[in-house]
């Protein structure tokens, strides 16, 4: 009898998960297509699909193919990358607030990218490279500094916040030194934006998402086991430190490449995991659902930022303003429950 009940519950949760995933996929695709359709000129879905299929459509080929398509693809990729990186950290440290945009890893990538642009005057792939190296170095620094008879999650988060504050001031300094004509471009490194997306950025980021994403997905079971605590996980056959280091490298790589391409889009890393957990319920890995939520968040926020207000806002401002109340709610709820803090 009780086996039946358990089995029924498992089936119900699996159905819910599949339903939520399917809905998310449909929403992402729909938003993606809408993003390609609307703008200064409206193109019907047929034109958009023909451009994607590679046919030449007068007008639409340039507007959709060269302007809107890279922007939308970059948005999806950045959303996926931020979300995967964020949910990995949240799962690993068992704290929804331990996302890379709060504990300073995004700040490391951001500071390095701004330094590369304003001081070294480099562009393109070099910026990505510098950002990735810096983000990894930041993550390593935070890890080493918080290591004292093992790493305690709380100490790591606090030290991350300290590092974030320091890097933030470095970014401020570089921005003050930046020439006025660089300012709009530089603001991107505070807020995150999809403006001026190009195919070369898309290529770089898609390679990174494919490589690191695959690495993360292949470790998703071990990551979930890590949530049970180090002792339980190693009893179940997980090599704890090795898994942790691999997973950290993959997550940091995703965050760094995404930050180098779009700037730190606020709260996507932080929000995607908790939202996904709400949607799919308590079953299975959160990696795929969170990635879908991240892509959807960035697409919707970019659409809203471009067309919903009197002036055009970069996507990071919209996600920031949308994310703020949710963040406060999450803090209040977590503190009330007295749970993971």
């Amino acid at each position, binding site marked *: 009898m009780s086996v039946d009940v358990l089995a029924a519950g498992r089936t119900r949760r699996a159905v819910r998960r599949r339903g939520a995933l399917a809905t998310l996929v449909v929403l992402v695709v729909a938003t993606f297509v809408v993003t390609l359709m609307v703008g200064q000129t409206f193109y019907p879905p047929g034109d958009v699909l023909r451009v994607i299929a590679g046919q030449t459509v007068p007008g639409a080929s340039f507007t959709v193919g060269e302007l809107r398509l890279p922007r939308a693809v970059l948005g999806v990729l950045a959303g996926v990358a931020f979300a995967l990186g964020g949910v990995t950290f949240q799962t690993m*440290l*068992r*704290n929804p*607030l331990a996302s890379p*945009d*709060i504990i300073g890893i995004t700040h490391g990538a951001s500071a390095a990218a701004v330094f590369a642009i304003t001081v070294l005057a480099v562009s393109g792939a070099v910026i990505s490279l510098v950002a990735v190296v810096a983000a990894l170095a930041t993550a390593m620094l935070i890890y080493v*500094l*918080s290591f*004292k008879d093992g790493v*305690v*999650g*709380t*100490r790591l*988060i*606090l*030290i991350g*916040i*300290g*590092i*974030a*504050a*320091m890097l*933030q*001031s*470095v970014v*401020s*300094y570089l*921005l*003050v*030194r930046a020439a*006025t004509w660089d*300012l709009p471009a530089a*603001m991107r490194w*505070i*807020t995150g934006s999809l403006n001026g997306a190009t195919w070369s950025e898309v290529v770089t980021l898609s390679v990174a998402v494919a490589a690191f994403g695959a690495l993360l997905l292949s470790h998703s079971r071990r990551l979930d086991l890590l949530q049970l605590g180090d002792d339980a996980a190693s009893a179940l056959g997980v090599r704890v430190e090795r898994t942790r280091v691999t997973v950290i490298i993959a997550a940091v790589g995703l965050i760094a490449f995404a930050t180098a391409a779009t700037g730190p889009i*606020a*709260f996507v890393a932080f929000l995607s995991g908790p939202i996904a957990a709400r949607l799919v319920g308590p079953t299975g890995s959160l990696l795929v659902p969170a990635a879908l939520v991240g892509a959807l968040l960035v697409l919707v926020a970019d659409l809203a930022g471009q067309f919903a207000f*009197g*002036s055009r*806002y*970069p996507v*990071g*401002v919209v*996600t*920031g*303003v949308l*994310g*703020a*109340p949710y*963040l*406060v709610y999450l*803090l*209040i709820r*977590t*503190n*009330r*429950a*007295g749970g*993971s*803090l």
Partner: protein
Amino acid sequence: MTVTLVRTAAPDDADRRRPVPAILALLLAGAAVLVLAAALSVAFGTRVVGWNDLVSAFTTDADGIAEAAVRQRIPRTLLAMLVGASLGVAGAVLQGLTRNPLADPMILGVTPGASLAVVSGIAFFGLSTATGYIWVAITGAALASAFVYGIGSLGRGGPTPLKLALSGAATTAAFTSLISAILLPRVDVLNSFRFWQVGGVGGATYTKLGQVLPFLIVGALICIACSRGLNSLALGDELATGLGERVMVIRVAAFVGAVTLCGAATAVAGPIAFVGLVVPHVCRLLIGVDHRWLLPSAAMVGALLLTVADVVGRVVARPSEIEVGIVTAIIGAPFFIYVVRKQKVRAL
């Protein structure tokens, strides 16, 4: 027990109360160093000024570039000292009030609160007077820090360092987005804001000093009046009540005093991080835990730290300069990490 924080140095808290003559000697020595730092701050700067020009700036009416530069350094030095002293005292009071060694105006969200209030004031209400800035900044600072503290103290264990730091970081992130949302369509405000945002004392004038001084004096007086009460609070709420202290009154008064100090300082100098964090710890090591001595010494060490940081920022990056807020962040963040590592942070 509502307090979950354990200071590693707690066992020798009792004998960290030094005899009064020793404290006075330390304070005097500190004052001497401060005077020296102020002299350095006037003598050294981005522009290299010879001895003769330095003397003539004070003794004659000569109006060369060198003399003007030196004269401009005087209000700047005064402002650095005032702001540093205010932040030091505010930090000491906030740490005593929350019994939290990581309490700092920046971490408690005071600074972003003041920034958001000032920016919305400029953008939506045509705020333009300097006194108006200060009032708005103080209000914003008070609201933001009350908010952060409120969220951080929900749930079990009261306001633990981690909860406070997280709710502060979260609120800062949220406010930063709101600030960008307000600023981005307004390029003119954005341009002036980016200079305010780094925190500096370079734009000091006597007028500015005069405008902010009354606020700083009021805030400092409130804080000093609370120092005995803060000593009782350090024993825990129950014991303080038993000693006849009105705990809530002390809390609110000390909070108002501290927020007035750092709100006004932020309004005039921009956000300057970590001074309020570092200074009280240094002073507790030197002077002990008695707030009646701690607050004056925090004022002095804060003034000293900011003056020296300002001189360093002017000298290392010639012919340009590094704003003092950045110098303090570079010095302060490692110190913050050191304090975190010294804490016995509970495992999750």
